C-alpha cells in the first residue's frame, strides 16, 4: 500500500479516533500513517454491531409481549450471548435460559439478580425494566 492509498474516507465506527496503518512512502520506506478508516472497515464493523442490535431489538419486542424476560434484552444490549454471559456470571447456560421465562425471572432471588447485574455492569433494579 502506498501512503496516498491509505484510506481516509472516514469510518463512523471509529468516532474521532484515527488508527495507525503501515504504508510505503515516496522514498520507498514503510512508515506509519494515521487513517480515518475506510468503507470496508465500516461495513464489516457495522455488520457485527447491527447483528447484535437486531438480536437486542428482537428480544425487547418479545419481552414487551411477555414471551421472554428483560434479562435476554440486556444480555444482547451488553453485546453478550448466552455462552458469554454464562462464562462471565458463572451461571450455567441452561439456568440462564430458564431465567428467560418472565415469571421465573420476576421471582429471581436477590443473590442471582446481583450476579447478573455484576456480570452485565448494570444496577440490579434496571434488569427488570426495558428502555
Amino acid at each position: 500500500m502506498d501512503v496516498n492509498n491509505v484510506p481516509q474516507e472516514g469510518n463512523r465506527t471509529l468516532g474521532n479516533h484515527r488508527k495507525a496503518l503501515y504504508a510505503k512512502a515516496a522514498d520507498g520506506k514503510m512508515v506509519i500513517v494515521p487513517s480515518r478508516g475506510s468503507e470496508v472497515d465500516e461495513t464489516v464493523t457495522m455488520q457485527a454491531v447491527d447483528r447484535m442490535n437486531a438480536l437486542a431489538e428482537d428480544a425487547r419486542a418479545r419481552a414487551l409481549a411477555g414471551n421472554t424476560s428483560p434479562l435476554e434484552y440486556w444480555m444482547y444490549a451488553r453485546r453478550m450471548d448466552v455462552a458469554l454471559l454464562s462464562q462471565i456470571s458463572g451461571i450455567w447456560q441452561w439456568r440462564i435460559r430458564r431465567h428467560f421465562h418472565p415469571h421465573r425471572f420476576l421471582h429471581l432471588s436477590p443473590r442471582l439478580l446481583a450476579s447478573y447485574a455484576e456480570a452485565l455492569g448494570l444496577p440490579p433494579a434496571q434488569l427488570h425494566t426495558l428502555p
Partner: protein
Amino acid sequence: MNPTNTNFHHRHAAHCESGVASSMMSHHAVNLSEAMAFGLSSALSFAYLPFIRLTGFPLIAYRMPPKFILKGMKKPFQTHFRFETFRHPDAGMRRLDELLAQGKVVGLQTSVFWLPYFPEDMRFHFNAHNLLVYGKEGDDYLISDPVTELPQRCASADLQRARFAKGALAPKGLLYYPESIGRTEVSAEAVRNAIKKTVRIMLGPIPIVGVRGMRMLANKVAKLDHSEHSLNYVGHIVRMQEEIGTGGAGFRFLYAAFLQEAAQITGIAELAVLSERLNEIGDGWREFALQAARMIKGREAFDPTRLAGMLRTQAERETEFFRTLKHAVA
C-alpha cells in the same frame, strides 16, 4: 499523591501488544520500533481455529497468541519481565498504585468493552487488549493506549472493571514491567533467527496454521451457502484482518516494515526486495477485503467460490514468498 512519569512518550501503533512492547522498551532506553518488536518476536502468523468460537464464528488469527510478543522480547534483549495477576481487584489496584509511586511505567492486560474512551461501536468483549499506565492524577489513570493517537485518561472504577473482566482470556488483573534489560541493541543473529522461526510457522505441517490454514479456510468459504450467516461469516474474516488493530492487511504491512529494518541490521539486501513483495501480497489481502465488503453491501452478487479462489491465490503467493525468505536468511 499524583505520580506521573514526565519523561514517558506516547506512541501511536497499529497493534496493541507490539505497541506496548515498543513503548515500554523505548522508555528503558532501547531503541525499538513497533515493526521491529513485532518481527523480532516472530509474531506474524495465520491460524484458522474452528474449535474456538467468537460469538458463533471460528477464531481466525493473523498473528501468534497474546503475550507472544512480550515473551519474544526476552531472548533478543535478555530482559526479564515480571508478570503479576491478582485474585482480588483491590489488591490489583493497590499494586498498580504502588508501582506507579515507584515511578514505573506499567503494562496491563484489559478487556476492550469496559474502557470508556473506546468508540461505542468498537467495544466488544475482547479480553486480550494491552495498554500502558504512566501516571495517576486524582482518580484518573494516565493511559498510553497504543492504538489511540493521543494519551487517554480512565477513572479507576472503569479501569478496575476492564482489568478484572471475566470470560475467555480473562486478564485477572495482569500487570507487567521489565525487571532487567541485558542489552539495548538488536543483533543480526536475533533478527535472522526470528525470521527463520516465522518461516517455520508459516510453512509448517499443522493443517490449520500458516499457509495450510489459509487453504483450509478457503475450502470452508467455498462451501458457504447464500444465507445471512454466510455473509456474517465473511464479514467476520475481514474484521479479524482489517479492523482489529493490524496495521492493514492482517499485519502483512507491519511485517514488510520489519523486513526493511531487518535488511539494514543484517546487511542482507534481498530482505528489502522481499519487503516490497510482501507489500504487494498485503495489497492482495486488501483486495480480498474490498470484494467481501462489496458483496456484504449487496453491490455485487455473493460469490463464495470467487472469495475462496482469492484466498487460495494468497496462500500460493505466501508459500512462494516464505520459501524465498527462507533462502534469504539461510
